[in-house]
């Protein structure tokens, strides 16, 4: 009969077998994303004598911090720099451990699928939350502008351009992708360039930013007649019937062009840069800075390009993300 191993060895061996082999990648990624945007403490704290360890040292630190905060607050309040009770949005999100991101149900950026909301805006929102190290609650709104005053959300991934925002209530954050608009003509049309549409009738979608480009004369053609329709579908129906010579798309993406084989693209306005948005009264500047840094990292490591290719078929994000 063999002598049992010493208890110390048995415990060590059991712990070794029980502990996991390695830390999951997403833990490191989240820690790195957070630490990239968190400033380091001043080394001055370490100058306190080691003898003041644990509680004594902590008490000195707390007392010093309280004095400093009181002094700074007094100066800030006296100077009217801050109002008591206001809290930075990033701090509130970190305290809560959750970020609420509003999206509009605007296909194909956010659609209601069988398993819930899905789309590029949702993917980006979830990835931002993961990198911030907080839970993400998606808040679905039909109109972010109307909901902005009281809506229960911290940020918006609304698939809107900065020009669509009211600067009095909204802050345009960093860009996260750029949406193309296509100038479509019938596949059988002899027109090959926007300039050849001089004098023709062109359909645009009501309220879409591409309307102003078309109104300005479609790349210098001049003299085009603009008609507006409520949706891409109605514009395309007019194009198909011959009621208009061309149509500028609003929400048709690169994936969808193949579906409309009766039409082909001859160019279009510059891609519309779409931005992350926050409520101005929330003091969102530091959180938007974090988001900008994370979007740049997502572009650099290929995450954003992959999300875009998955949802849109092409990469509409990498070259633009984090700008603006």
């Amino acid at each position, binding site marked *: 009969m063999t002598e049992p191993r010493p*208890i*110390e060895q*048995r*415990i*060590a061996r*059991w*712990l*070794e*077998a*029980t*502990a*996991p*082999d*390695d*830390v*999951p990648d*997403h*833990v*490191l990624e*989240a*820690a*790195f994303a*957070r*630490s*990239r945007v*968190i*400033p*380091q*403490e*001043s*080394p001055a*704290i*370490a100058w306190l004598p*080691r003898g003041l360890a*644990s509680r004594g040292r902590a008490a000195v630190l707390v007392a010093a911090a309280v004095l400093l905060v009181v002094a700074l607050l007094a100066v800030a309040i006296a100077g009217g720099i801050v109002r008591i009770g206001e809290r930075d949005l990033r701090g509130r999100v970190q305290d809560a451990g959750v970020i609420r991101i509003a999206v509009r149900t605007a296909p194909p950026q956010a659609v209601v699928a069988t398993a819930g909301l899905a789309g590029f805006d949702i993917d980006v929102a979830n990835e931002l939350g993961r990198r911030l*190290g907080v839970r993400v609650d998606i808040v679905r709104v039909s109109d972010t502008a109307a909901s902005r005053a009281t809506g229960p959300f911290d940020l918006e991934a609304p698939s809107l351009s900065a020009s669509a925002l009211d600067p009095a209530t909204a802050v345009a954050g960093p860009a996260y992708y750029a949406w193309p608009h296509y100038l479509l003509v019938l596949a059988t049309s002899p027109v090959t360039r926007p300039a050849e549409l001089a004098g023709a009738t062109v359909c645009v979608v009501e309220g879409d930013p591409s309307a102003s480009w078309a109104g300005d004369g479609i790349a210098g053609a001049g003299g085009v007649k603009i008609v507006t329709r409520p949706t891409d579908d109605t514009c395309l129906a007019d194009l198909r019937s011959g009621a208009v010579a061309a149509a500028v798309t609003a929400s048709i993406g690169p994936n969808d062009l193949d579906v409309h084989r009766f039409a082909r693209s001859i160019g279009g306005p510059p891609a519309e840069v779409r931005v992350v948005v926050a409520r101005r009264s929330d003091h969102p500047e530091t959180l938007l800075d974090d988001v900008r840094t994370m979007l740049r990292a997502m572009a650099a490591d290929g995450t954003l390009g992959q999300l875009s290719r998955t949802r849109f078929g092409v990469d509409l994000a990498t070259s633009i993300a984090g700008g603006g």
Partner: protein
Amino acid sequence: MDRSLVEAARRGDHEAFEALAIGVSGRLYGVARLILRDTHLAEDATQEALVNAWRRLPTLRDVDRFDAWMYRLIVNACRDVGRDRRRMSPEIHVIQMPQPATVPNEEVEERDLLERGFRHLRDDHRIVVILHYYLGLPAAEVADVVGIPVGTAKSRIHYATEALRAALDADARASVRTGEGAS
């Protein structure tokens, strides 16, 4: 531990910090899993410890003490996460530990006994067991990491070891009694 990496990370070099973190994170996560006995909580604690490490690195006075300092951060993060768990959901007892498929029966039995004995230990005794037997820290370093006198660390290690020995011995005695009864 690469001293130059610690020095660079203290000066704000994030790439150096990432290299350091990758090197130490496996052990930190292991400690967190053993203390908290829950995958998600251990992930949270590991992430918190790493973020705190980045923030506080400039205040680390002795670069050679980096590993011990990191262990202190993970133990504190586990305490914080554990406190939150008790405050938020006292009924949660998730045990998700890997068990290799091909382990001899007696070994499985021994692990099971140690697991049960370990669960009966107080939190502060579990922590010293993990630091001492899993990380291999001597009692003086355990004391430094936990922030207790060396004598207290020694006494906790001794108490916890005896408690685990008793868990194994109790089963051995029960087996002997069963054998006697059968003859």
